[in-house]
């Protein structure tokens, strides 16, 4: 994989309330009860990875831990299962952020895939040690759908930052 040395567009600074809002929306999406449908991405993990890559100084392991606790409760799993996986995910994502952002979006998604898979593996290991049943290989499908969503997610979550500083009626965008 070759990094693109094309310069990135200079973005507006991100607003804290927008990050908060996206986490809230991701939690909401994860709470929608689809039953035992396999392959649904973990929206919270994906959003967390995104902000850890984009804003490693604003979103990090503390946010990951808190989101993990909430996910543990709403998904009725063992306390600490999601927080453990998310803290590791946050650490890896913010550690790799300077590297990942060099690549075009498709390669970024390839970087995110092992991170999401790693988080799932951690959760699997924790639950298997706790004596749960193996959910089948399709359990890992959600990481792949999650990394496929990286492309639309980037445009969606960066939309407010694409706005120009000064409103100019003659400007096309």
């Amino acid at each position, binding site marked *: 994989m070759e990094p693109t040395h094309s310069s990135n567009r200079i973005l507006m600074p991100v607003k804290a309330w927008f990050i908060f809002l996206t986490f809230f929306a991701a939690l909401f999406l994860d709470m929608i009860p689809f039953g035992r449908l396999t392959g649904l991405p973990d929206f919270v993990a994906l959003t967390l990875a995104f902000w850890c890559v984009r804003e490693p100084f604003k979103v990090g*392991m503390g946010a990951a831990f808190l989101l993990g606790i909430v996910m543990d409760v709403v998904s009725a799993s063992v*306390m600490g299962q999601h927080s453990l996986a998310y803290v590791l995910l946050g650490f890896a994502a913010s550690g790799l952020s300077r590297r990942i952002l060099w690549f075009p979006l498709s390669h970024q998604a390839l970087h995110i895939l092992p991170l999401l898979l790693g988080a799932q593996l951690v959760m699997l290991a924790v639950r298997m040690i706790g004596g*749960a049943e193996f959910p089948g290989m399709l359990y890992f499908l959600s990481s792949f759908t999650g990394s496929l969503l990286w492309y639309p997610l980037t445009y969606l979550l960066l939309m407010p930052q694409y706005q120009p500083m000064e409103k100019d009626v003659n400007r096309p965008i």
Partner: protein
Amino acid sequence: MSVVGQQPPPFFKRGPAPLTRLAFFLALSLLLLVLDLRYHTLEWSRQAVAFVAYPLQRIAYLPVATADNAAQYFSSLAALQKENTVLLRRQLDTANQLLRQEHLELENQRLRALLDMKQRQTVPGRVAQILYSARDPFARRIILDNGSQQGIVAGQVVVDELGVIGQVTRVFPMLSEVTLITDKDQAVPVQILRNGLRTVIFGAGAGGLELHFLAANADIQVGDVLVTSGLDGVYLAGLPVAKVVRIDRDTPYTFARILCQPIAGVEDHDQVLVLGQGEALPPQPPEPQKTEKPAKGRKGRR
């Protein structure tokens, strides 16, 4: 290690280093895991977070509920008629027993009074709706729309019109969580209806159940119906649980491998009945006092 690849100048305060933070949060998460898995002492915090998340959860349930309603609205007349005939036939099949049940119960009561035995318990039930199955892919749990506000208590048994579904394992103010009998950690004390052989049935995952610790030469056949034995004082006696579908006796183990299928529609979404708790069983008689003292030494001190 720094996220920017180089150490920021000391006048920009960034807080503790990432590795330090990682170690701190990992330790915290592991502590939570051990506390919850081994000591089960985190229910209060779970209650608190669940209380805050409840309105959001109800709103998140709305799209699914709307889709369900729409599907019901458009379900064809033929399907409804078919369901109706099935229900009518089932009612006729059981009518014989149902009509005589009152008579039999009265007779049973009189006979029990005659024999001076303890009366059989009758417990009230409460109808609840299954909202959805929990997102956790490692366990088989469902969420009911009744909680502690409606008088649901952890430990209550949940049945549908055919048999046992599971047991209430966690109660929130407006919701409750039921662990299905097909969950790997769920055990139900049962007896074989045909000969009264008592044993314990465990969930085997993938919608099945398994009988452990039954000797290879035990009197059990394919097609045997297992009902609750009521020995634990939690499950009422005589509720249908499972049917034996396969027995492997020619294994090199002492125990036969017996696979069962639940009788109730365990994995379906429907209305269920949460049975009230029966009277507590009398306490177990105390163990006979050991006369000899443990030998002094390392073992005695523990």
